[in-house]
Protein backbone atom coordinates (compact mmCIF):
# COMPACT_ATOMS: atom_id res chain seq x y z
CA UNK A 1 0.00 0.00 0.00
CA UNK A 2 1.27 3.44 -0.86
CA UNK A 3 2.29 5.56 2.11
CA UNK A 4 0.25 8.74 2.53
CA UNK A 5 2.17 11.91 1.80
CA UNK A 6 2.79 14.48 4.47
CA UNK A 7 2.44 18.17 3.73
CA UNK A 8 3.31 20.66 6.45
CA UNK A 9 2.33 24.32 6.39
CA UNK A 10 4.40 26.81 8.35
CA UNK A 11 5.05 30.51 8.65
CA UNK A 12 8.36 31.73 10.03
CA UNK A 13 6.65 34.54 11.96
CA UNK A 14 4.51 32.11 13.97
CA UNK A 15 5.78 31.31 17.49
CA UNK A 16 3.89 28.01 17.34
CA UNK A 17 5.64 27.03 14.12
CA UNK A 18 8.96 27.97 15.74
CA UNK A 19 8.53 25.66 18.73
CA UNK A 20 7.14 22.86 16.55
CA UNK A 21 9.76 22.96 13.81
CA UNK A 22 12.36 20.52 15.16
CA UNK A 23 9.71 18.08 16.31
CA UNK A 24 8.09 18.06 12.90
CA UNK A 25 11.40 17.21 11.25
CA UNK A 26 11.51 14.03 13.29
CA UNK A 27 8.59 12.68 11.29
CA UNK A 28 10.99 12.63 8.35
CA UNK A 29 14.37 11.94 9.93
CA UNK A 30 13.19 9.31 12.37
CA UNK A 31 10.08 7.86 10.77
CA UNK A 32 10.90 8.30 7.10
CA UNK A 33 7.85 10.35 6.11
CA UNK A 34 9.20 12.84 3.64
CA UNK A 35 7.77 16.28 4.28
CA UNK A 36 6.60 18.66 1.61
CA UNK A 37 6.85 22.08 3.24
CA UNK A 38 4.41 24.79 2.27
CA UNK A 39 4.67 28.42 3.31
CA UNK A 40 1.37 29.73 4.62
CA UNK A 41 1.73 33.46 5.03
CA UNK A 42 -0.66 34.36 7.83
CA UNK A 43 -2.65 37.54 7.51
CA UNK A 44 -2.54 38.23 11.23
CA UNK A 45 -4.39 41.54 10.91
CA UNK A 46 -7.45 39.60 9.74
CA UNK A 47 -7.87 37.67 12.98
CA UNK A 48 -5.79 39.36 15.66
CA UNK A 49 -5.69 42.98 14.55
CA UNK A 50 -2.49 44.97 14.25
CA UNK A 51 0.12 46.33 16.66
CA UNK A 52 3.56 47.90 16.58
CA UNK A 53 5.90 48.02 19.58
CA UNK A 54 9.07 49.89 20.34
CA UNK A 55 12.19 47.91 21.18
CA UNK A 56 12.17 48.76 24.88
CA UNK A 57 8.53 47.70 25.22
CA UNK A 58 5.36 49.70 24.89
CA UNK A 59 2.87 49.67 22.06
CA UNK A 60 3.09 52.57 19.64
CA UNK A 61 0.16 51.73 17.40
CA UNK A 62 -2.64 49.18 17.59
CA UNK A 63 -6.23 48.43 16.63
CA UNK A 64 -6.47 45.35 18.85
CA UNK A 65 -9.36 44.74 21.20
CA UNK A 66 -8.70 43.67 24.85
CA UNK A 67 -9.88 40.20 23.88
CA UNK A 68 -7.37 40.01 21.02
CA UNK A 69 -4.60 41.18 23.36
CA UNK A 70 -5.51 38.45 25.86
CA UNK A 71 -5.26 35.81 23.16
CA UNK A 72 -1.95 37.17 21.83
CA UNK A 73 -0.43 37.35 25.32
CA UNK A 74 -1.59 33.83 26.17
CA UNK A 75 -0.16 32.52 22.90
CA UNK A 76 3.27 34.04 23.55
CA UNK A 77 3.29 32.95 27.18
CA UNK A 78 2.51 29.43 26.03
CA UNK A 79 5.01 29.33 23.17
CA UNK A 80 7.73 30.69 25.50
CA UNK A 81 7.30 27.80 27.95
CA UNK A 82 8.02 25.36 25.16
CA UNK A 83 10.78 27.42 23.56
CA UNK A 84 12.65 27.68 26.85
CA UNK A 85 12.32 23.97 27.39
CA UNK A 86 13.99 23.40 24.01
CA UNK A 87 16.71 25.92 24.78
CA UNK A 88 15.35 28.38 22.20
CA UNK A 89 15.15 32.14 22.58
CA UNK A 90 11.80 33.65 21.65
CA UNK A 91 11.67 37.44 21.61
CA UNK A 92 8.30 38.90 20.68
CA UNK A 93 8.40 40.67 17.30
CA UNK A 94 8.12 44.46 17.31
CA UNK A 95 5.71 44.55 14.39
CA UNK A 96 3.61 42.20 12.30
CA UNK A 97 5.97 41.09 9.61
CA UNK A 98 5.10 40.31 6.02
CA UNK A 99 6.70 36.89 5.85
CA UNK A 100 5.81 36.16 2.23
CA UNK A 101 9.40 36.66 1.04
CA UNK A 102 10.63 34.18 3.65
CA UNK A 103 7.95 31.79 2.39
CA UNK A 104 9.22 32.23 -1.16
CA UNK A 105 12.74 31.58 0.13
CA UNK A 106 11.48 28.33 1.64
CA UNK A 107 10.13 27.28 -1.76
CA UNK A 108 13.44 28.19 -3.38
CA UNK A 109 15.55 26.32 -0.85
CA UNK A 110 13.29 23.29 -1.02
CA UNK A 111 13.93 23.17 -4.77
CA UNK A 112 17.60 24.06 -4.74
CA UNK A 113 19.17 22.63 -1.59
CA UNK A 114 21.54 19.81 -2.40
CA UNK A 115 20.27 17.75 0.53
CA UNK A 116 17.47 17.65 3.07
CA UNK A 117 20.03 18.47 5.75
CA UNK A 118 20.74 21.79 4.03
CA UNK A 119 17.03 22.57 3.84
CA UNK A 120 16.70 21.82 7.54
CA UNK A 121 19.69 23.96 8.38
CA UNK A 122 18.23 26.87 6.42
CA UNK A 123 14.90 26.62 8.20
CA UNK A 124 16.46 26.20 11.63
CA UNK A 125 18.73 29.19 11.18
CA UNK A 126 15.99 31.40 9.77
CA UNK A 127 13.71 30.59 12.69
CA UNK A 128 16.54 31.10 15.20
CA UNK A 129 17.65 34.47 13.85
CA UNK A 130 14.12 35.79 13.40
CA UNK A 131 13.09 34.98 16.97
CA UNK A 132 16.30 36.58 18.23
CA UNK A 133 15.14 39.70 16.34
CA UNK A 134 18.23 39.27 14.22
CA UNK A 135 16.69 38.76 10.80
CA UNK A 136 14.64 41.07 8.61
CA UNK A 137 12.17 38.71 6.95
CA UNK A 138 11.34 41.32 4.34
CA UNK A 139 14.95 41.80 3.18
CA UNK A 140 16.19 39.51 0.36
CA UNK A 141 19.80 40.09 1.42
CA UNK A 142 19.10 38.77 4.94
CA UNK A 143 17.45 35.67 3.51
CA UNK A 144 20.28 35.09 1.05
CA UNK A 145 22.78 35.34 3.91
CA UNK A 146 20.99 32.48 5.63
CA UNK A 147 20.95 30.48 2.38
CA UNK A 148 24.71 31.00 2.16
CA UNK A 149 25.08 29.91 5.78
CA UNK A 150 23.18 26.70 4.95
CA UNK A 151 25.28 26.20 1.79
CA UNK A 152 22.32 26.72 -0.52
CA UNK A 153 22.97 28.41 -3.84
CA UNK A 154 21.10 31.73 -3.98
CA UNK A 155 22.09 32.73 -7.51
CA UNK A 156 18.84 33.70 -9.24
CA UNK A 157 16.80 34.05 -6.06
CA UNK A 158 16.10 37.76 -6.58
CA UNK A 159 14.40 37.14 -9.93
CA UNK A 160 12.61 34.08 -8.57
CA UNK A 161 11.26 36.12 -5.66
CA UNK A 162 9.76 38.69 -8.01
CA UNK A 163 8.36 36.32 -10.62
CA UNK A 164 8.02 32.55 -10.51
CA UNK A 165 8.44 32.24 -6.75
CA UNK A 166 5.96 35.00 -5.98
CA UNK A 167 3.46 33.46 -8.38
CA UNK A 168 3.83 30.04 -6.75
CA UNK A 169 3.58 31.49 -3.27
CA UNK A 170 0.45 33.51 -4.04
CA UNK A 171 -1.21 30.57 -5.78
CA UNK A 172 -0.39 28.33 -2.80
CA UNK A 173 -2.15 30.69 -0.42
CA UNK A 174 -5.38 30.28 -2.38
CA UNK A 175 -5.00 26.52 -2.71
CA UNK A 176 -4.20 25.95 0.96
CA UNK A 177 -6.99 28.17 2.23
CA UNK A 178 -9.47 26.44 -0.07
CA UNK A 179 -8.30 23.09 1.31
CA UNK A 180 -9.02 24.30 4.83
CA UNK A 181 -5.60 25.36 6.07
CA UNK A 182 -6.03 28.50 8.17
CA UNK A 183 -3.16 28.42 10.68
CA UNK A 184 0.26 26.98 11.38
CA UNK A 185 1.65 24.52 11.89
CA UNK A 186 -0.89 22.51 9.93
CA UNK A 187 -0.44 18.98 8.67
CA UNK A 188 -2.17 17.65 5.58
CA UNK A 189 -2.49 13.89 5.33
CA UNK A 190 -4.74 12.90 2.45
CA UNK A 191 -7.93 14.91 2.87
CA UNK A 192 -7.42 15.42 6.57
CA UNK A 193 -6.03 18.56 8.15
CA UNK A 194 -4.52 18.70 11.62
CA UNK A 195 -3.95 22.13 13.12
CA UNK A 196 -1.37 22.46 15.88
CA UNK A 197 1.60 20.49 17.12
CA UNK A 198 -0.53 18.82 19.80
CA UNK A 199 -1.68 16.54 16.97
CA UNK A 200 1.79 15.27 16.06
CA UNK A 201 1.08 11.88 17.67
CA UNK A 202 -2.16 11.59 15.71
CA UNK A 203 -0.48 12.66 12.47
CA UNK A 204 2.17 9.99 12.97
CA UNK A 205 -0.51 7.44 13.86
CA UNK A 206 -2.36 8.28 10.64
CA UNK A 207 0.84 8.11 8.56
CA UNK A 208 1.66 4.70 10.04
CA UNK A 209 -1.69 3.21 9.09
CA UNK A 210 -3.99 4.17 12.01
CA UNK A 211 -3.19 1.05 14.02
CA UNK A 212 -4.54 0.83 17.56
CA UNK A 213 -6.51 3.54 19.34
CA UNK A 214 -6.33 7.10 18.10
CA UNK A 215 -3.86 9.10 20.25
CA UNK A 216 -5.01 11.96 22.44
CA UNK A 217 -3.73 15.47 21.79
CA UNK A 218 -0.59 16.43 23.71
CA UNK A 219 2.13 19.01 23.28
CA UNK A 220 5.49 17.28 23.07
CA UNK A 221 7.47 18.31 26.13
CA UNK A 222 10.51 16.13 26.59
CA UNK A 223 12.71 14.85 23.80
CA UNK A 224 11.68 11.47 22.56
CA UNK A 225 8.01 11.93 23.35
CA UNK A 226 6.95 10.92 19.89
CA UNK A 227 8.69 7.58 20.44
CA UNK A 228 7.32 6.63 23.84
CA UNK A 229 4.15 5.10 22.44
CA UNK A 230 2.37 6.48 25.49
CA UNK A 231 -0.46 8.13 23.67
CA UNK A 232 -3.04 7.58 26.37
CA UNK A 233 -1.41 9.58 29.17
Amino acid at each position, binding site marked *: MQQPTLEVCIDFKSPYAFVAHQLIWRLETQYGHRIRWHPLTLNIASFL*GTATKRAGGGVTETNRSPRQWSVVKAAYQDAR*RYAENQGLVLKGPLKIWDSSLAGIALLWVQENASSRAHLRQFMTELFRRFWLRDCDLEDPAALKAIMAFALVDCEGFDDYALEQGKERHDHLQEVLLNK*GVFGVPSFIVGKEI*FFGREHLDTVLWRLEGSKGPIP*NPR*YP*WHTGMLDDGDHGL
Partner: protein
Amino acid sequence: MTAIMDFNHCYLLVDLQDVESMVALKVVSGWAQRVAVPVSVQPFLKPKINTAGDVPKGSDAFEAYKNKRAAARNLVRAQERLRDLQRLGLTEVDRLSPLQWLQIHWGLLQVAEQSANLSMLFDKLFAVLRAADGRQRGDALEILLAFLVSDSEPSVAFEMDKAHRDLRSVASAWQAKGVLSAPSLWLNGEVFMGVGHLPLITDRLLKLGLDK
Protein backbone atom coordinates in the same frame (compact mmCIF):
# COMPACT_ATOMS: atom_id res chain seq x y z
CA MET B 1 -18.59 31.99 47.40
CA THR B 2 -15.65 30.05 48.81
CA ALA B 3 -12.22 30.29 47.24
CA ILE B 4 -12.05 28.21 44.12
CA MET B 5 -8.31 27.94 43.74
CA ASP B 6 -5.77 26.11 45.82
CA PHE B 7 -2.09 25.82 45.21
CA ASN B 8 -0.72 22.41 44.22
CA HIS B 9 -4.20 21.51 43.18
CA CYS B 10 -5.08 21.18 39.57
CA TYR B 11 -8.32 22.48 38.11
CA LEU B 12 -9.88 21.32 34.88
CA LEU B 13 -12.29 23.80 33.35
CA VAL B 14 -14.84 22.27 31.04
CA ASP B 15 -17.87 22.95 28.93
CA LEU B 16 -19.18 19.43 28.59
CA GLN B 17 -21.46 20.29 25.69
CA ASP B 18 -18.26 20.42 23.68
CA VAL B 19 -16.77 17.03 22.79
CA GLU B 20 -13.25 18.40 23.30
CA SER B 21 -14.05 18.94 26.98
CA MET B 22 -15.32 15.37 27.25
CA VAL B 23 -12.02 14.12 25.83
CA ALA B 24 -10.23 16.36 28.32
CA LEU B 25 -12.20 14.87 31.19
CA LYS B 26 -11.36 11.36 30.02
CA VAL B 27 -7.65 12.08 29.55
CA VAL B 28 -7.27 14.05 32.78
CA SER B 29 -9.08 11.40 34.82
CA GLY B 30 -6.55 8.78 33.67
CA TRP B 31 -3.65 11.16 34.26
CA ALA B 32 -4.83 12.20 37.75
CA GLN B 33 -4.84 8.57 38.83
CA ARG B 34 -1.41 8.00 37.40
CA VAL B 35 0.30 11.00 38.95
CA ALA B 36 -1.86 10.94 42.10
CA VAL B 37 -2.75 14.62 41.91
CA PRO B 38 -6.06 15.98 43.14
CA VAL B 39 -8.00 17.53 40.29
CA SER B 40 -11.23 19.45 40.56
CA VAL B 41 -13.51 19.85 37.59
CA GLN B 42 -15.31 23.12 37.23
CA PRO B 43 -17.65 24.40 34.57
CA PHE B 44 -16.47 27.25 32.38
CA LEU B 45 -19.36 28.21 30.14
CA LYS B 46 -18.33 30.93 27.77
CA PRO B 47 -18.72 31.08 23.99
CA LYS B 48 -15.59 30.14 22.02
CA ILE B 49 -13.43 33.18 21.42
CA ASN B 50 -13.61 34.55 17.90
CA THR B 51 -10.94 37.23 17.69
CA ALA B 52 -11.64 37.78 13.98
CA GLY B 53 -15.02 39.19 15.01
CA ASP B 54 -13.22 42.14 16.65
CA VAL B 55 -11.26 43.09 13.53
CA PRO B 56 -12.48 46.36 11.96
CA LYS B 57 -14.08 45.99 8.53
CA GLY B 58 -11.65 46.32 5.65
CA SER B 59 -11.60 46.20 1.87
CA ASP B 60 -13.70 43.70 -0.09
CA ALA B 61 -10.63 41.51 -0.61
CA PHE B 62 -9.84 41.62 3.12
CA GLU B 63 -13.39 40.66 4.04
CA ALA B 64 -13.38 37.86 1.45
CA TYR B 65 -10.17 36.51 2.99
CA LYS B 66 -11.70 36.67 6.47
CA ASN B 67 -14.73 34.71 5.30
CA LYS B 68 -12.61 32.07 3.59
CA ARG B 69 -10.44 31.71 6.66
CA ALA B 70 -13.50 31.32 8.88
CA ALA B 71 -14.81 28.59 6.55
CA ALA B 72 -11.44 26.81 6.66
CA ARG B 73 -11.40 26.99 10.42
CA ASN B 74 -14.89 25.49 10.66
CA LEU B 75 -13.87 22.67 8.35
CA VAL B 76 -10.85 21.76 10.47
CA ARG B 77 -12.91 22.04 13.67
CA ALA B 78 -15.45 19.61 12.22
CA GLN B 79 -12.65 17.15 11.39
CA GLU B 80 -11.20 17.49 14.87
CA ARG B 81 -14.63 16.92 16.40
CA LEU B 82 -14.91 13.65 14.49
CA ARG B 83 -11.50 12.59 15.82
CA ASP B 84 -12.58 13.54 19.34
CA LEU B 85 -15.71 11.42 18.97
CA GLN B 86 -13.44 8.58 17.87
CA ARG B 87 -11.33 9.13 20.99
CA LEU B 88 -14.48 8.67 23.04
CA GLY B 89 -15.61 5.65 21.02
CA LEU B 90 -18.78 7.46 19.95
CA THR B 91 -20.23 8.24 16.56
CA GLU B 92 -22.35 11.12 17.81
CA VAL B 93 -23.27 12.66 21.11
CA ASP B 94 -26.94 12.48 21.92
CA ARG B 95 -28.30 15.88 22.51
CA LEU B 96 -29.38 16.79 26.01
CA SER B 97 -31.74 19.68 26.62
CA PRO B 98 -30.33 23.03 27.80
CA LEU B 99 -31.95 22.40 31.19
CA GLN B 100 -30.22 19.02 31.51
CA TRP B 101 -26.83 20.55 30.67
CA LEU B 102 -27.52 23.30 33.18
CA GLN B 103 -28.22 20.67 35.84
CA ILE B 104 -25.01 18.79 35.01
CA HIS B 105 -22.79 21.87 35.05
CA TRP B 106 -24.41 23.16 38.22
CA GLY B 107 -23.97 19.69 39.72
CA LEU B 108 -20.25 19.93 38.94
CA LEU B 109 -20.09 23.06 41.05
CA GLN B 110 -21.49 21.19 44.03
CA VAL B 111 -18.56 18.76 44.09
CA ALA B 112 -15.95 21.22 42.96
CA GLU B 113 -14.44 21.61 46.42
CA GLN B 114 -14.13 17.89 47.01
CA SER B 115 -12.22 16.81 43.90
CA ALA B 116 -14.78 14.34 42.71
CA ASN B 117 -13.49 10.98 41.66
CA LEU B 118 -12.84 11.86 38.05
CA SER B 119 -13.08 8.41 36.55
CA MET B 120 -16.42 7.82 38.29
CA LEU B 121 -17.60 11.18 37.08
CA PHE B 122 -16.51 10.42 33.53
CA ASP B 123 -18.14 6.98 33.58
CA LYS B 124 -21.45 8.36 34.80
CA LEU B 125 -21.42 11.20 32.33
CA PHE B 126 -20.44 8.86 29.55
CA ALA B 127 -23.38 6.63 30.41
CA VAL B 128 -25.66 9.61 29.79
CA LEU B 129 -24.11 10.36 26.41
CA ARG B 130 -24.07 6.73 25.33
CA ALA B 131 -27.67 6.02 26.34
CA ALA B 132 -29.60 4.33 23.56
CA ASP B 133 -32.91 6.11 24.12
CA GLY B 134 -34.58 8.87 26.10
CA ARG B 135 -35.60 6.61 28.97
CA GLN B 136 -32.13 5.18 29.46
CA ARG B 137 -30.71 8.68 29.22
CA GLY B 138 -33.11 9.93 31.88
CA ASP B 139 -32.08 7.12 34.23
CA ALA B 140 -28.38 7.72 33.61
CA LEU B 141 -28.82 11.44 34.16
CA GLU B 142 -30.57 10.81 37.46
CA ILE B 143 -27.67 8.65 38.62
CA LEU B 144 -25.14 11.29 37.53
CA LEU B 145 -26.95 14.14 39.28
CA ALA B 146 -27.36 12.09 42.44
CA PHE B 147 -23.61 11.39 42.36
CA LEU B 148 -22.81 15.07 41.95
CA VAL B 149 -25.18 16.52 44.48
CA SER B 150 -24.88 13.82 47.14
CA ASP B 151 -21.29 14.90 47.79
CA SER B 152 -22.23 18.49 48.41
CA GLU B 153 -22.20 19.74 51.92
CA PRO B 154 -24.64 21.12 52.92
CA SER B 155 -26.93 19.54 50.35
CA VAL B 156 -28.60 22.02 48.05
CA ALA B 157 -31.60 21.99 45.79
CA PHE B 158 -31.43 22.93 42.13
CA GLU B 159 -32.94 26.28 41.22
CA MET B 160 -32.65 27.41 37.65
CA ASP B 161 -32.03 31.14 38.17
CA LYS B 162 -29.54 30.53 40.93
CA ALA B 163 -27.79 27.88 38.84
CA HIS B 164 -27.35 30.38 35.99
CA ARG B 165 -26.03 32.98 38.40
CA ASP B 166 -23.60 30.56 40.04
CA LEU B 167 -22.24 29.38 36.70
CA ARG B 168 -21.79 32.94 35.45
CA SER B 169 -20.05 33.92 38.64
CA VAL B 170 -17.63 30.99 38.48
CA ALA B 171 -16.84 31.65 34.83
CA SER B 172 -16.12 35.31 35.62
CA ALA B 173 -13.82 34.32 38.48
CA TRP B 174 -11.82 32.05 36.18
CA GLN B 175 -11.80 34.65 33.44
CA ALA B 176 -10.27 37.10 35.89
CA LYS B 177 -7.54 34.51 36.45
CA GLY B 178 -6.74 34.42 32.74
CA VAL B 179 -8.82 31.49 31.53
CA LEU B 180 -10.02 32.13 27.99
CA SER B 181 -11.72 28.93 26.95
CA ALA B 182 -12.63 25.39 27.88
CA PRO B 183 -11.08 22.94 28.19
CA SER B 184 -8.25 24.53 30.15
CA LEU B 185 -6.12 23.44 33.07
CA TRP B 186 -5.04 25.66 35.92
CA LEU B 187 -2.17 24.94 38.29
CA ASN B 188 -0.56 27.32 40.76
CA GLY B 189 -1.59 30.46 38.93
CA GLU B 190 -0.72 29.19 35.47
CA VAL B 191 -3.33 28.65 32.79
CA PHE B 192 -2.87 25.90 30.22
CA MET B 193 -5.26 26.11 27.30
CA GLY B 194 -6.37 22.74 25.94
CA VAL B 195 -5.75 19.33 27.35
CA GLY B 196 -2.43 18.75 25.59
CA HIS B 197 -0.23 20.24 28.30
CA LEU B 198 -0.28 17.27 30.68
CA PRO B 199 3.37 16.31 29.96
CA LEU B 200 4.47 19.85 30.89
CA ILE B 201 2.22 19.91 33.97
CA THR B 202 3.56 16.53 35.09
CA ASP B 203 7.04 17.97 34.82
CA ARG B 204 6.01 21.02 36.88
CA LEU B 205 4.51 18.78 39.56
CA LEU B 206 7.60 16.58 39.68
CA LYS B 207 9.68 19.70 40.19
CA LEU B 208 7.38 20.65 43.05
CA GLY B 209 8.34 17.35 44.60
CA LEU B 210 5.15 15.42 44.17
CA ASP B 211 5.67 11.72 43.69
CA LYS B 212 4.71 10.29 40.36
